[in-house]
């Protein structure tokens, strides 16, 4: 009881800046599951449970694009749930609960426990996995993440240093400021061996915090709930598998897929799991890529080269494969349609799977409900428009918006001003935009 009380206080006192978790979206989970030969439910009509959902942003951002799907989330933090409920969508149910009281929730195609396993007390970990097992439909897919060994060891050293250095401070903002001061000092250290590795980890952490902290946040609440958290235990891959097995869950795969065979060495692990009585997964197969769609997000950059949203540069040659995908850009294209014969298709599938593992290409089992056609009265999802509207009304300089494939972008105020008008009724062609700017006296000579 005591740890639960402490956590309620901490997350109510210092809200967590929840965002959509791209890899936990039902379509992303379905994609990996299908590559592993599993019959995962379509995202469009999926039933999704999010355990420890915070303010529900991960669910709300997905639900905004999947009106036929249903989403349930709960969290111990009253304030976080209240914030999520204020942005209610008809296909999302959010409620306050501890993990013990959250039972008989029904059967779900996807059960997500993002940012939970490492950060809750041991007793809650067992209940979390038990709830996931009990809530998964026979073919359901679970998503779990945790800090991972051995990659997290340097973070462990940073965490112990930070908690020790801030033990006498009460104010969360002061704790985070002192922590980041210490991290910066270590990041500047020169030396080899352990010190060099620790300094490198400190630099990586400082960079991550600089990128991840909202510009209008008073301090990094992520640091407070991660490095300085009362509970934060990493697990080795083997230990995670053992825990899953004890809960009658089976590991399907990591997500994103591992780039190369060998032991897992990263500091953070995300996995897909299933019930242990479900049909077992098979090895990831390139042939199954042919049943997926490719996001053709190729932006021409000259010289016959194209840049993807992920930052990769490709130079397609010939008529088939990526060259054909480039001609379909922007939008989604069925992989099978990108080549004309089995040999070419097989080579393309291998190429795309390798690129998918490296994060170069985006493949999906469920084409998202979005359009790339321009209209005179464009429409963005109501939830996104409302979020832009709220950010503008609050005078924010920017806001994080999530797209149809569950990727989040920090959008500047100037674009929020435009996005909030995209309701599908208000004309907003380029000419209309220019006309509005002219009428509002924004244009200057020259």
């Amino acid at each position: 009881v005591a740890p639960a009380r402490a956590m309620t206080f901490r997350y109510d006192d210092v809200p967590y800046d929840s965002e959509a978790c791209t890899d936990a979206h039902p379509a992303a989970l379905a994609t990996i599951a299908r590559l592993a030969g599993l019959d995962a439910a379509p995202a469009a009509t999926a039933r999704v449970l999010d355990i420890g959902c915070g303010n529900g942003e991960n669910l709300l951002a997905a639900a905004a694009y999947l009106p036929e799907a249903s989403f349930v989330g709960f969290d111990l933090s009253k304030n976080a749930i209240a914030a999520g409920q204020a942005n209610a969508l008809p296909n999302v149910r959010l409620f306050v609960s501890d993990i013990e009281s959250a039972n008989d929730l029904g059967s779900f195609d996807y059960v997500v426990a993002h940012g939970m396993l490492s950060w809750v007390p041991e007793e809650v970990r067992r209940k979390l996995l038990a709830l996931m097992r009990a809530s998964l439909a026979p073919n359901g897919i679970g998503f779990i993440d945790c800090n991972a060994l051995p990659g997290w060891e340097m973070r462990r050293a940073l965490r112990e240093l930070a908690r020790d250095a801030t033990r006498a401070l009460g104010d969360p903002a002061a704790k985070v400021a002192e922590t980041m001061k210490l991290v910066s000092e270590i990041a500047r250290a020169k030396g080899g061996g352990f010190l060099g590795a620790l300094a490198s980890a400190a630099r990586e952490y400082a960079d991550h915090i600089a990128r991840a902290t909202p510009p209008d946040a008073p301090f990094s609440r992520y640091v407070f709930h991660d490095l300085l958290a009362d509970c934060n235990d990493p697990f080795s891959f083997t230990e995670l598998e053992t825990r899953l097995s004890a809960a009658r869950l089976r590991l399907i795969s990591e997500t994103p897929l591992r780039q190369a065979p060998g032991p897992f060495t990263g500091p953070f692990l995300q996995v897909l799991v299933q019930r242990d009585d479900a049909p077992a997964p098979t090895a990831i197969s390139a042939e199954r890529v042919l049943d997926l769609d490719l996001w053709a997000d190729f932006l021409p950059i000259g010289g016959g080269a194209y840049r993807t949203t992920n930052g990769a540069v490709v130079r397609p040659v010939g008529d088939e494969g990526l060259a054909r995908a480039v001609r379909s850009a922007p939008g989604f294209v069925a992989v099978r349609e990108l080549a004309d014969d089995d040999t070419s298709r097989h080579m393309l599938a291998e190429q795309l799977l390798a690129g998918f593992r490296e994060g170069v290409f985006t493949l999906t089992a469920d084409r998202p409900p979005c359009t790339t056609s321009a209209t005179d009265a464009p429409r963005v999802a109501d939830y996104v428009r409302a979020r832009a509207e709220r950010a503008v009304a609050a005078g924010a300089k920017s806001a994080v918006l999530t797209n149809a494939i569950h990727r989040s972008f920090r959008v500047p105020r100037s674009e929020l001003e435009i996005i909030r008008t995209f309701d599908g009724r208000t004309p907003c062609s380029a000419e209309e935009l220019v006309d509005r700017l002219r009428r509002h006296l924004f244009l200057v000579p020259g």
Partner: protein
Amino acid sequence: MNWNALAHRALFTATLYGQRNIGRVAIQSSGDLVVTVDEPRLEVFPQSKLVAVMVASTAALAYSASEPRAPASTPERIRELVELAARQHLSLIEPELLVAAAGAKTAADRAVRATLIYGSTARALLFIETRSAPKNGLVKLHEERVLDGWIEARIPIEGLAELAPNTPTTGRDLLRAVRGNRPASSSDGPQLAKLLARAWREGSVELYAADPAQPLV
């Protein structure tokens, strides 16, 4: 537990921290320098004027397979040990930190940071009689003593190039090798000692106050 290696490390630490007249090094019982570990958890410190509790950080033990190895400790436990020692009129002594020194005021602060930042698999927390302890446990390094002992490099040492010995070599022999054929300067010894002391604190060299070929305990 490689007690002999732990004892060598404790003895060198005591020497570098300025402790003198260490005749007998003993494990967990009476001696001029008593070397112990916190496993099982120490309830009472050994009776001695000089006690070394060997600790390691969990991250360091996972990062490196190097010997010697002491049981992992935590910042909380290091602070508990300092309090436990204080009840027996023993005080921790620690030198100034090379990294992240700001805010580390007490010897316990410095011990916690040094253990975690330098990632030693076996670091001596050195306790001396409180009445002899310097203010805040801040001890000066006696680097000049480094060349009276033996040196064994674990990894290449910046500033020594190929001269870093991978088998135990006396400080005097190393100094001769460093000088080579060039004229000797009075600053050669202090410079080499300073460089080695720093490398030792960063964990890239093993230094000995006594011949490592001879068992210490």
